[in-house]
């Protein structure tokens, strides 16, 4: 118990350190740097992956609807935050749309630009999550009764239906049909500007801060009595029900929580991209998030986070050279656009086939534990004879 407290303290310090590091990085390296892009995108994917992990890894519900819930979050965030003055331009095919307010703008008018921005963005993200959650509830009513793989296809199907609805031009006055939503408050608005230049960069730090807060909440849920009930459902549904866990309610709870955070991730993605369109929220996006979960370890929160960083980093940055023809050696013409993704998917298949547990399996990265482990590794040489002795005794 005492050790548990100590280690959670160490973990908190580690997370704080990480945030400080990102803040410092953001000030010293150019804002167009690939590292910052990767940090931002992987933070969003980490949240999406953790929310999917809650469902697939901790509750054992194989759902493939994540992209649909992210789409809802992104749209809700976008729709609620386009400044009234810009609506005519954005909704040019729909007479400026029907919604004529903007949360961030409205709050900024009342509370001043800084407080208004922070509260407005947080409020919009929460609404984005809630709307995704409400959709999840409605979808969950019929779908959560299905068994394993049928659930997967049904949720996938719903994600596609959602996408079709948001692109439907009858809903255009709200969703802008298949056209872009843009001009809403984005991450760069958090940078503190003085004299036409950015004095303090905050866009990455703010994003990571929000993601960290969300993942902490998910972790708290997983470690609570509800999280234990989810795991019981995953391990053995029949036994869980026989021990008084209401399957319908708990599955729904997990489904809605997962959709809520997927919605928040969608809202953050909208902020990061500065525009929203339904097209990219395809099944392929869900697959990518699923693969992040698998690589990190199904049932490990920290695994999902680490894997999101590796996945985004590899696909957007470190493997870039594979797409460039100038790196071809000896007249071979293998390297050209698209090769990166081939190598990448082969690597994923190798993980799926041969390292099924992923990076972390079902365990979590623990800073205190890591420290102890490192200590052991470094003191190994000195302790080797003693360890051998111990081994003999055990044998």
């Amino acid at each position: 118990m005492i050790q548990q407290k100590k280690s959670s303290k160490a973990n908190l310090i580690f997370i704080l350190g990480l945030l400080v590091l990102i803040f410092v990085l953001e000030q010293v390296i150019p804002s167009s740097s690939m590292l910052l892009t990767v940090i931002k995108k992987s933070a969003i994917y980490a949240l999406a992956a953790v929310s999917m992990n809650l469902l697939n890894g901790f509750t054992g519900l194989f759902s493939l609807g994540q992209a649909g819930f992210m789409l809802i979050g992104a749209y809700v965030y976008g729709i609620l935050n386009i400044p009234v003055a810009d609506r005519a331009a954005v909704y040019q095919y729909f007479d400026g749309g029907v919604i004529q307010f903007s949360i961030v703008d409205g709050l900024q008018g009342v509370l001043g630009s800084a407080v208004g921005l922070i509260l407005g963005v947080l409020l919009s993200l929460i609404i984005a999550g809630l709307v995704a959650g409400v959709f999840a509830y409605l979808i969950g009513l019929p779908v959560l009764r299905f068994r394993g793989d049928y659930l997967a296809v049904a949720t996938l199907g719903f994600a596609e239906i959602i996408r079709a609805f948001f692109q439907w031009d009858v809903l255009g006055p709200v969703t802008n049909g298949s056209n872009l939503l843009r001009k809403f408050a984005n991450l760069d608005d958090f940078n503190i500007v003085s004299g036409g230049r950015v004095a303090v960069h905050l866009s990455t730090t703010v994003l990571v801060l929000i993601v960290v807060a969300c993942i902490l909440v998910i972790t708290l849920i997983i470690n609570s009595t509800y999280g234990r009930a989810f795991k019981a459902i995953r391990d053995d549904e029949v036994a869980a029900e026989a021990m008084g866990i209401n399957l319908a309610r708990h599955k729904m709870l997990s489904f809605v929580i997962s959709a809520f955070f997927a919605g928040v991730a969608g809202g953050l993605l909208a902020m990061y991209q500065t525009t929203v369109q339904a097209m990219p929220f395809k099944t392929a996006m869900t697959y990518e998030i699923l693969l992040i979960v698998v690589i990190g370890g199904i049932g490990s929160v920290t695994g999902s986070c680490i894997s999101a960083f590796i996945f985004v980093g590899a696909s957007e940055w470190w493997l870039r050279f594979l797409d460039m023809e100038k790196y071809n050696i000896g007249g071979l013409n293998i390297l050209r656009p698209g090769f990166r993704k081939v190598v990448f998917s082969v690597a994923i298949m190798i993980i799926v086939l041969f390292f099924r547990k992923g990076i972390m399996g079902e365990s979590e990265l623990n800073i205190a534990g890591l420290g102890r482990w490192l200590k052991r590794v470094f003191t190994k040489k000195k302790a080797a004879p003693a360890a051998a002795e111990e081994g003999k005794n055990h044998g």
Partner: protein
Amino acid sequence: MQWITNNLPYLLAGISVGGQYALIAIGYTMVYGILRLINFAHGDIFMAAGLIMVYASASMPFYLSIPLVLVLTVLLGFAVERVAYKPLRQAPRMSVMISAIGVSYLIQNVALYVTGGLSQQYPNIPWLSDTVVVFGAMTKRVTLITPVLTLILIVLLVLLINRTKIGMGMRAVSKDFETSLLMGIKIDNVISVTFIIGSFLAAVGSLLFFTNYTGVTPTVGAMPGLKAFVAAVFGGIGSVPGAVIGAFIIGICENIIKALGWTTFSDAFTFALLILILIFKPTGLFGEKTTDKV
């Protein structure tokens, strides 16, 4: 008469697409029947068959390229099973499904690499893509050939399943995997044959499908694949005739929806149908009921 001339093309297209879905759906339903696996990569194998045809027909005549497409697609399906599914025979079902998604991702990315992301022009297969007139409605000959060819292939398949030794093996494995293993059925062979048949039919389906749709892109297989899967569920997964009937119904309904001007929802309709079936008749039209033992 005018009404018929106006609407017949949609109905014909529906029957034709239905036949193509049927050919893909059989692959899903047979694999699911035996491995209890939704083979997410099946739609991509169908797409790959289309791409192979694009490249093969560029360098050889049709009487060579068509058989080559069939052979290469079958090899691809066989290889996918051996590499990505066979090692996971003892693993939880979720792992196999993830592997299938991984394969789908891989095939799509390879296609992206090979094509450079550009839509590839599907060759005009002579005779198949000739225009014919039916009751005053213009259509390609493939539209008329598809249902006929589909039915012939299905009759052959049903004969194979019911009359041959390997067919008996398939039926046994789909009834009870473990017991079949104990009874000395060579499960790996049965599974391989299943994938070979599924891929062969998907290849035939792609020849017919792309003749009507001209362009092949890396993601073009995903949607027909999912629709074919829905057709398989609709008919009762594991049942070949069920999958075929389901596929025709979906193909026709989809084109009726297009005729009504609701094209945005033609994909969504399929999934709505899926969800309705799963709610009201989870075993599909011809599926068998199974109960979990406590």
